[in-house]
């Protein structure tokens, strides 16, 4: 929370990247506390690791300090209103961890009870991601591949006559 405020307010971009990375690490710790080590893993490796490096590399293209601009009130109002609506929406959500919540009654019990027999993999997260939801994961892999391909084609690829 504090780190996010610092990221929004500070004008020193290098410090912002560092704090952003620390924010990711804290979020990873939070996921670990909430018993989601798979998500925490990803957050630590991607959020705190790779994306920090990418932002540092991008920073070398621009000046280190953000230019102080005019205060813009309309975007601030939009953000505050959206945030307030989202918080209002959470009031209708069922309490966290209640066994009767819709999320625990839909497909989750079947995954939890049957995956040991059907898939034979102890980690249910893996069996859901890789087998029951194989199509989604295929889409994810293709998204990663396409993103890399796009970046490489846009700024990385050299024409044949430019080859050193």
């Amino acid at each position: 929370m504090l780190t996010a405020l610092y990221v929004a307010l500070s004008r020193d971009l290098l410090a912002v990247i560092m704090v952003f990375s620390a924010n990711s690490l804290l979020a990873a710790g939070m996921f670990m506390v909430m018993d989601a080590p798979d998500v925490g893993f990803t957050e630590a490796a991607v959020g705190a690791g790779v994306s920090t490096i990418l932002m540092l590399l991008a920073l070398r293209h621009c000046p280190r300090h953000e230019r102080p601009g005019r205060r813009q009130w309309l975007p601030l109002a939009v953000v505050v209103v959206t945030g307030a609506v989202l918080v209002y929406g959470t009031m209708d959500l069922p309490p966290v961890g209640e066994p009767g919540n819709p999320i625990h009654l839909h497909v989750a019990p079947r995954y939890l009870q049957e995956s040991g027999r059907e898939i034979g993999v102890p980690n249910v997260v893996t069996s859901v991601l890789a087998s029951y939801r194989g199509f989604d994961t295929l889409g994810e892999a293709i998204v990663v591949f396409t993103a890399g391909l796009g970046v490489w084609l846009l700024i990385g690829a050299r024409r044949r006559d430019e080859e050193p």
Partner: protein
Amino acid sequence: MRDVVILRVVAKFLIPVIMLFALYVQFHGELGPGGAFQAGVILASAVILHMLVFGLETTRRVVPVAWLRVGAALGTLVYGGTGVAALLRGGNYLDYDALAVDPVAGQHLGILLIELGVGLTVASTMVLLVFTFAERTRR
């Protein structure tokens, strides 16, 4: 950063450990937390650490860009190909039950294959991204 002795020594020690950990996360993902996506990013971070310490040129001699392009495409192909293999063996697309005689063994094989594909794609793409940005920065 090539002349900072501490960084160089620590990196030399850490890179194999990080790579080993990536393999552990990749192949132990069925049993404990983790999986191919995380393993791919961890493997990529080992290569990126090498690049930060020893420079882009050295790392590109260790991991040529052509490999990364092939790796990213090959990983996606392995994933899609597993689906097609299930089709050819008479199941639905990505239905791993059809991959072996025993459905559970088929599931194991299918998950292993697609995790390999995802890991390969993610690791190659991450390193390719960082290489591309780093090269752009140098020019």
